[in-house]
Protein backbone atom coordinates (compact mmCIF):
# COMPACT_ATOMS: atom_id res chain seq x y z
CA UNK A 1 0.00 0.00 0.00
CA UNK A 2 2.71 2.42 1.02
CA UNK A 3 4.88 1.21 -1.83
CA UNK A 4 2.16 2.14 -4.33
CA UNK A 5 1.99 5.70 -3.00
CA UNK A 6 5.77 5.98 -3.06
CA UNK A 7 5.92 4.68 -6.61
CA UNK A 8 3.26 7.15 -7.70
CA UNK A 9 5.16 10.05 -6.16
CA UNK A 10 8.36 8.87 -7.80
CA UNK A 11 6.72 8.67 -11.22
CA UNK A 12 5.17 12.11 -10.77
CA UNK A 13 8.57 13.56 -9.84
CA UNK A 14 10.14 11.89 -12.88
CA UNK A 15 7.43 13.30 -15.14
CA UNK A 16 7.86 16.85 -13.86
CA UNK A 17 11.65 16.56 -14.04
CA UNK A 18 11.62 15.30 -17.59
CA UNK A 19 9.41 18.16 -18.69
CA UNK A 20 11.99 20.64 -17.40
CA UNK A 21 14.93 18.77 -18.89
CA UNK A 22 16.50 20.25 -22.03
CA UNK A 23 14.80 18.67 -24.97
CA UNK A 24 16.51 15.34 -25.59
CA UNK A 25 14.91 14.69 -28.92
CA UNK A 26 17.54 12.07 -29.60
CA UNK A 27 16.21 8.75 -28.34
CA UNK A 28 19.66 7.28 -27.93
CA UNK A 29 20.68 10.10 -25.57
CA UNK A 30 17.58 9.55 -23.50
CA UNK A 31 18.22 5.82 -23.29
CA UNK A 32 21.82 6.39 -22.18
CA UNK A 33 20.69 8.90 -19.58
CA UNK A 34 18.05 6.56 -18.20
CA UNK A 35 20.45 3.63 -18.09
CA UNK A 36 23.04 5.72 -16.22
CA UNK A 37 20.49 6.90 -13.70
CA UNK A 38 19.17 3.37 -13.18
CA UNK A 39 22.70 2.07 -12.64
CA UNK A 40 23.48 4.80 -10.15
CA UNK A 41 20.27 4.23 -8.24
CA UNK A 42 20.95 0.50 -8.17
CA UNK A 43 24.38 1.22 -6.74
CA UNK A 44 22.87 3.46 -4.10
CA UNK A 45 20.27 0.91 -3.07
CA UNK A 46 22.83 -1.91 -2.92
CA UNK A 47 25.15 0.20 -0.80
CA UNK A 48 22.34 1.17 1.55
CA UNK A 49 21.27 -2.44 2.06
CA UNK A 50 24.82 -3.66 2.49
CA UNK A 51 25.62 -0.97 5.06
CA UNK A 52 22.42 -1.09 7.08
CA UNK A 53 21.60 -4.80 7.10
CA UNK A 54 23.38 -6.61 9.90
CA UNK A 55 24.08 -9.67 7.76
CA UNK A 56 27.75 -9.84 6.77
CA UNK A 57 28.10 -13.21 8.43
CA UNK A 58 25.55 -15.92 9.11
CA UNK A 59 25.53 -19.33 10.75
CA UNK A 60 22.43 -20.47 8.93
CA UNK A 61 20.03 -19.31 11.63
CA UNK A 62 21.01 -15.82 12.74
CA UNK A 63 22.84 -12.92 11.09
CA UNK A 64 25.84 -11.14 12.60
CA UNK A 65 28.11 -8.23 11.77
CA UNK A 66 28.61 -5.36 10.83
CA UNK A 67 26.87 -3.59 13.66
CA UNK A 68 26.20 -6.12 16.39
CA UNK A 69 27.02 -9.70 17.18
CA UNK A 70 24.38 -11.02 19.58
CA UNK A 71 23.35 -14.61 20.21
CA UNK A 72 20.38 -15.66 22.23
CA UNK A 73 21.26 -17.98 25.05
CA UNK A 74 18.92 -19.28 27.77
CA UNK A 75 16.40 -16.56 27.13
CA UNK A 76 18.85 -13.70 27.28
CA UNK A 77 21.05 -11.98 24.73
CA UNK A 78 24.79 -12.28 24.85
CA UNK A 79 26.41 -9.63 22.71
CA UNK A 80 30.02 -9.49 21.67
CA UNK A 81 31.40 -6.01 21.60
CA UNK A 82 33.45 -4.53 18.82
CA UNK A 83 35.96 -3.22 21.34
CA UNK A 84 38.78 -5.53 20.37
CA UNK A 85 37.97 -5.42 16.68
CA UNK A 86 39.17 -2.04 15.50
CA UNK A 87 39.09 -3.23 11.92
CA UNK A 88 35.34 -3.86 12.20
CA UNK A 89 34.81 -0.24 13.14
CA UNK A 90 36.97 0.77 10.20
CA UNK A 91 34.76 -1.35 7.90
CA UNK A 92 31.68 0.35 9.37
CA UNK A 93 33.16 3.77 8.69
CA UNK A 94 34.21 2.89 5.12
CA UNK A 95 30.77 1.51 4.23
CA UNK A 96 29.02 4.57 5.64
CA UNK A 97 31.40 6.86 3.76
CA UNK A 98 30.87 4.94 0.52
CA UNK A 99 27.10 5.30 0.84
CA UNK A 100 27.39 9.02 1.62
CA UNK A 101 29.72 9.61 -1.35
CA UNK A 102 27.42 7.69 -3.70
CA UNK A 103 24.51 9.83 -2.54
CA UNK A 104 26.54 13.03 -2.97
CA UNK A 105 27.57 11.98 -6.48
CA UNK A 106 23.94 11.34 -7.42
CA UNK A 107 22.93 14.81 -6.22
CA UNK A 108 25.91 16.28 -8.10
CA UNK A 109 24.83 14.42 -11.23
CA UNK A 110 21.36 15.89 -11.06
CA UNK A 111 22.83 19.36 -10.56
CA UNK A 112 25.45 19.06 -13.29
CA UNK A 113 22.83 17.82 -15.71
CA UNK A 114 21.36 21.30 -15.73
CA UNK A 115 24.38 23.51 -15.10
CA UNK A 116 27.08 21.92 -17.22
CA UNK A 117 28.19 23.60 -20.45
CA UNK A 118 27.80 21.70 -23.70
CA UNK A 119 30.59 19.23 -24.23
CA UNK A 120 31.57 19.24 -20.58
CA UNK A 121 32.26 16.13 -18.60
CA UNK A 122 30.57 15.11 -15.38
CA UNK A 123 33.79 15.57 -13.49
CA UNK A 124 32.68 15.90 -9.87
CA UNK A 125 30.09 13.15 -10.24
CA UNK A 126 32.78 10.80 -11.51
CA UNK A 127 35.20 11.74 -8.71
CA UNK A 128 32.70 11.04 -5.95
CA UNK A 129 31.50 7.82 -7.56
CA UNK A 130 35.06 6.50 -7.98
CA UNK A 131 35.84 7.46 -4.38
CA UNK A 132 32.73 5.60 -3.24
CA UNK A 133 33.85 2.50 -5.13
CA UNK A 134 37.32 2.73 -3.57
CA UNK A 135 35.81 2.96 -0.09
CA UNK A 136 33.58 -0.06 -0.71
CA UNK A 137 36.55 -1.97 -2.04
CA UNK A 138 38.64 -1.13 1.02
CA UNK A 139 35.84 -2.07 3.39
CA UNK A 140 35.13 -5.38 1.68
CA UNK A 141 38.85 -6.26 1.50
CA UNK A 142 39.44 -5.45 5.16
CA UNK A 143 36.46 -7.56 6.18
CA UNK A 144 37.51 -10.46 3.96
CA UNK A 145 41.06 -10.46 5.28
CA UNK A 146 40.30 -10.04 8.97
CA UNK A 147 37.11 -12.05 9.40
CA UNK A 148 38.62 -15.61 9.50
CA UNK A 149 39.99 -14.94 12.97
CA UNK A 150 36.75 -13.33 14.12
CA UNK A 151 34.09 -15.74 12.99
CA UNK A 152 33.24 -19.20 14.29
CA UNK A 153 34.10 -22.38 12.42
CA UNK A 154 30.77 -23.07 10.74
CA UNK A 155 29.90 -19.50 9.79
CA UNK A 156 29.52 -18.41 6.19
CA UNK A 157 29.39 -15.00 4.60
CA UNK A 158 25.98 -13.38 4.51
CA UNK A 159 24.14 -11.54 1.78
CA UNK A 160 25.26 -8.08 2.85
CA UNK A 161 28.88 -9.15 2.32
CA UNK A 162 28.04 -10.39 -1.17
CA UNK A 163 26.23 -7.10 -1.90
CA UNK A 164 29.25 -5.11 -0.80
CA UNK A 165 31.51 -7.01 -3.19
CA UNK A 166 28.88 -6.54 -5.91
CA UNK A 167 28.66 -2.80 -5.25
CA UNK A 168 32.39 -2.29 -5.89
CA UNK A 169 32.51 -3.12 -9.64
CA UNK A 170 29.12 -1.52 -10.24
CA UNK A 171 30.17 1.79 -8.71
CA UNK A 172 33.49 1.64 -10.55
CA UNK A 173 31.74 1.09 -13.89
CA UNK A 174 29.32 3.88 -13.06
CA UNK A 175 32.22 6.19 -12.25
CA UNK A 176 33.96 5.40 -15.54
CA UNK A 177 30.74 6.04 -17.42
CA UNK A 178 30.62 9.49 -15.88
CA UNK A 179 34.24 10.13 -16.85
CA UNK A 180 33.50 9.20 -20.46
CA UNK A 181 30.04 10.74 -20.69
CA UNK A 182 29.81 14.15 -22.25
CA UNK A 183 26.89 16.52 -22.19
CA UNK A 184 25.84 16.62 -25.82
CA UNK A 185 23.66 18.90 -27.91
Amino acid at each position, binding site marked *: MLWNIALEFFLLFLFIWFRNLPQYTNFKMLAILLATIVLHLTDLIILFISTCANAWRTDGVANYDLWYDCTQRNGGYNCRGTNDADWLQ*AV*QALMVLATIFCLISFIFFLCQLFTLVKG*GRFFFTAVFQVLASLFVMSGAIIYTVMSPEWKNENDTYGYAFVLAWLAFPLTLISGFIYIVLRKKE
Partner: protein
Amino acid sequence: MLSVLALTSVVLLGIASQITAIVVYTSWERHALVGSDVRLSCSFFSWQWTSPDVTFSWQYRPDGAKEGISIFHYGGGAAYVDNKGPFRDRLEFVGNPSRRDGSILIKNLDFSDNGTFTCDAKNPPDIVGRPSSVRLLVFEKVPVQAGVVTGAIIGVVLGLLILIVAIYYLMRFLVARRVFSLSMSKHGKKGKGKEGSQQKQAGPLK
Protein backbone atom coordinates in the same frame (compact mmCIF):
# COMPACT_ATOMS: atom_id res chain seq x y z
CA MET B 1 14.38 49.41 40.63
CA LEU B 2 17.82 47.78 40.71
CA SER B 3 17.80 47.61 44.50
CA VAL B 4 14.41 45.87 44.44
CA LEU B 5 15.83 43.35 41.99
CA ALA B 6 18.92 42.75 44.17
CA LEU B 7 16.77 42.37 47.26
CA THR B 8 14.49 39.85 45.50
CA SER B 9 17.42 37.77 44.30
CA VAL B 10 18.99 37.68 47.76
CA VAL B 11 15.68 36.60 49.32
CA LEU B 12 15.22 33.93 46.65
CA LEU B 13 18.74 32.66 47.21
CA GLY B 14 18.08 32.45 50.90
CA ILE B 15 14.93 30.45 50.29
CA ALA B 16 16.66 28.30 47.70
CA SER B 17 19.41 27.35 50.10
CA GLN B 18 16.80 25.93 52.41
CA ILE B 19 15.01 23.81 49.83
CA THR B 20 17.80 22.51 47.58
CA ALA B 21 20.12 19.81 48.73
CA ILE B 22 23.82 19.29 48.34
CA VAL B 23 24.73 17.70 44.99
CA VAL B 24 27.76 15.45 44.79
CA TYR B 25 29.61 14.99 41.48
CA THR B 26 31.87 12.13 40.47
CA SER B 27 32.72 10.54 37.14
CA TRP B 28 30.42 7.86 35.79
CA GLU B 29 33.06 5.27 34.96
CA ARG B 30 36.84 5.13 35.02
CA HIS B 31 38.99 2.80 32.96
CA ALA B 32 42.55 2.08 34.03
CA LEU B 33 45.37 -0.32 33.28
CA VAL B 34 46.72 -2.88 35.74
CA GLY B 35 49.57 -1.45 37.73
CA SER B 36 48.74 2.17 37.01
CA ASP B 37 47.35 4.88 39.27
CA VAL B 38 43.88 6.30 39.01
CA ARG B 39 42.51 9.54 40.46
CA LEU B 40 38.87 9.40 41.50
CA SER B 41 37.47 12.91 41.62
CA CYS B 42 34.64 14.04 43.84
CA SER B 43 33.16 17.50 44.09
CA PHE B 44 29.93 19.01 45.30
CA PHE B 45 27.61 21.93 44.77
CA SER B 46 25.99 23.64 47.70
CA TRP B 47 24.30 26.99 48.18
CA GLN B 48 26.05 27.47 51.51
CA TRP B 49 29.59 28.72 51.84
CA THR B 50 32.19 25.98 52.26
CA SER B 51 32.15 25.22 55.94
CA PRO B 52 35.32 24.38 57.91
CA ASP B 53 33.44 21.24 59.06
CA VAL B 54 33.06 19.91 55.52
CA THR B 55 33.39 16.09 55.32
CA PHE B 56 34.21 13.69 52.48
CA SER B 57 33.73 9.92 52.75
CA TRP B 58 34.68 7.29 50.23
CA GLN B 59 33.18 3.80 50.28
CA TYR B 60 34.23 0.80 48.19
CA ARG B 61 31.97 -2.04 47.11
CA PRO B 62 33.62 -4.84 45.09
CA ASP B 63 31.83 -6.27 42.06
CA GLY B 64 29.38 -8.87 43.24
CA ALA B 65 29.45 -7.88 46.92
CA LYS B 66 26.34 -6.61 48.63
CA GLU B 67 27.89 -4.27 51.14
CA GLY B 68 30.61 -1.70 50.86
CA ILE B 69 33.39 -0.83 53.25
CA SER B 70 34.59 2.60 54.15
CA ILE B 71 38.05 3.40 52.85
CA PHE B 72 38.52 7.13 53.34
CA HIS B 73 37.19 9.90 55.52
CA TYR B 74 38.01 13.59 55.72
CA GLY B 75 36.56 15.48 58.63
CA GLY B 76 37.51 18.13 61.11
CA GLY B 77 40.31 19.31 58.86
CA ALA B 78 42.14 15.94 58.83
CA ALA B 79 42.20 13.10 56.28
CA TYR B 80 42.00 9.46 57.41
CA VAL B 81 43.04 6.88 54.81
CA ASP B 82 42.54 3.15 54.81
CA ASN B 83 45.20 1.38 56.90
CA LYS B 84 43.60 -2.03 57.37
CA GLY B 85 41.52 -2.81 54.30
CA PRO B 86 42.31 -3.67 50.69
CA PHE B 87 43.77 -0.24 49.97
CA ARG B 88 46.24 0.14 52.81
CA ASP B 89 49.40 1.97 51.72
CA ARG B 90 47.84 2.51 48.27
CA LEU B 91 45.42 5.33 49.00
CA GLU B 92 46.32 9.00 49.03
CA PHE B 93 44.21 12.08 49.51
CA VAL B 94 44.88 14.57 46.70
CA GLY B 95 41.88 16.84 47.12
CA ASN B 96 41.45 20.37 48.38
CA PRO B 97 38.46 20.57 50.72
CA SER B 98 38.42 24.35 50.84
CA ARG B 99 37.89 24.24 47.06
CA ARG B 100 35.23 21.54 47.40
CA ASP B 101 37.50 18.85 45.95
CA GLY B 102 37.58 15.51 47.70
CA SER B 103 39.57 13.42 45.21
CA ILE B 104 41.59 10.38 46.11
CA LEU B 105 44.45 8.64 44.34
CA ILE B 106 44.68 4.84 44.23
CA LYS B 107 48.10 3.52 43.27
CA ASN B 108 49.21 0.22 41.71
CA LEU B 109 45.84 -1.12 40.59
CA ASP B 110 45.00 -4.78 40.47
CA PHE B 111 42.10 -6.75 38.98
CA SER B 112 40.63 -7.15 42.46
CA ASP B 113 40.06 -3.38 42.59
CA ASN B 114 37.17 -3.62 40.16
CA GLY B 115 34.08 -2.22 41.80
CA THR B 116 32.01 0.81 42.72
CA PHE B 117 33.42 3.74 44.69
CA THR B 118 30.89 5.99 46.38
CA CYS B 119 31.67 9.53 47.49
CA ASP B 120 29.55 11.25 50.10
CA ALA B 121 30.15 14.90 50.84
CA LYS B 122 28.55 16.98 53.56
CA ASN B 123 28.76 20.72 53.95
CA PRO B 124 27.15 21.69 57.30
CA PRO B 125 24.42 22.93 57.58
CA ASP B 126 23.73 21.55 54.06
CA ILE B 127 23.79 17.85 54.78
CA VAL B 128 20.79 16.47 52.87
CA GLY B 129 21.93 14.91 49.63
CA ARG B 130 22.63 11.70 47.74
CA PRO B 131 26.11 10.24 47.43
CA SER B 132 27.49 9.70 43.95
CA SER B 133 29.18 6.56 42.60
CA VAL B 134 31.94 5.94 40.10
CA ARG B 135 32.65 2.52 38.63
CA LEU B 136 36.24 1.46 38.29
CA LEU B 137 37.18 -0.98 35.53
CA VAL B 138 40.70 -2.36 35.46
CA PHE B 139 41.96 -3.74 32.16
CA GLU B 140 45.07 -5.41 30.97
CA LYS B 141 44.75 -3.51 27.72
CA VAL B 142 42.40 -0.53 27.51
CA PRO B 143 39.93 -1.34 24.73
CA VAL B 144 38.75 1.14 22.14
CA GLN B 145 35.16 1.96 22.83
CA ALA B 146 32.57 0.98 20.28
CA GLY B 147 32.20 3.57 17.60
CA VAL B 148 35.24 5.70 18.40
CA VAL B 149 37.27 4.48 15.43
CA THR B 150 34.19 4.62 13.19
CA GLY B 151 33.38 8.17 14.12
CA ALA B 152 36.99 9.26 13.83
CA ILE B 153 37.40 7.89 10.30
CA ILE B 154 34.10 9.35 9.10
CA GLY B 155 34.83 12.69 10.70
CA VAL B 156 38.33 12.94 9.23
CA VAL B 157 37.24 12.05 5.71
CA LEU B 158 34.27 14.41 5.69
CA GLY B 159 36.40 17.12 7.23
CA LEU B 160 39.01 16.68 4.48
CA LEU B 161 36.23 16.84 1.89
CA ILE B 162 34.90 20.11 3.28
CA LEU B 163 38.44 21.46 3.49
CA ILE B 164 39.17 20.58 -0.13
CA VAL B 165 35.91 22.18 -1.28
CA ALA B 166 36.68 25.30 0.74
CA ILE B 167 40.22 25.53 -0.67
CA TYR B 168 38.87 25.03 -4.20
CA TYR B 169 36.42 27.89 -3.84
CA LEU B 170 39.09 30.03 -2.20
CA MET B 171 41.48 29.42 -5.11
CA ARG B 172 38.74 30.28 -7.59
CA PHE B 173 38.04 33.49 -5.70
CA LEU B 174 41.73 34.42 -5.53
CA VAL B 175 42.35 33.65 -9.21
CA ALA B 176 39.33 35.74 -10.12
CA ARG B 177 40.70 38.69 -8.16
CA ARG B 178 44.09 38.37 -9.84
CA VAL B 179 42.49 38.25 -13.28
CA PHE B 180 40.52 41.32 -12.36
CA SER B 181 43.54 43.38 -11.30
CA LEU B 182 46.08 42.22 -13.91
CA SER B 183 43.54 42.29 -16.75
CA MET B 184 45.02 39.23 -18.45
CA SER B 185 42.83 37.14 -20.68
CA LYS B 186 42.99 33.69 -19.16
CA HIS B 187 39.40 32.85 -19.87
CA GLY B 188 40.06 30.94 -23.05
CA LYS B 189 42.36 28.30 -21.52
CA LYS B 190 40.39 26.51 -18.82
CA GLY B 191 36.97 26.09 -20.34
CA LYS B 192 36.55 22.39 -19.59
CA GLY B 193 36.93 21.89 -15.90
CA LYS B 194 35.73 25.15 -14.37
CA GLU B 195 32.32 24.99 -16.03
CA GLY B 196 32.51 28.38 -17.63
CA SER B 197 32.75 30.28 -14.36
CA GLN B 198 35.83 32.15 -15.48
CA GLN B 199 34.09 32.91 -18.71
CA LYS B 200 31.40 34.57 -16.69
CA GLN B 201 33.93 36.50 -14.59
CA ALA B 202 36.04 37.59 -17.52
CA GLY B 203 32.93 38.82 -19.25
CA PRO B 204 32.87 42.37 -17.86
CA LEU B 205 36.58 42.73 -18.72
CA LYS B 206 35.90 42.45 -22.38
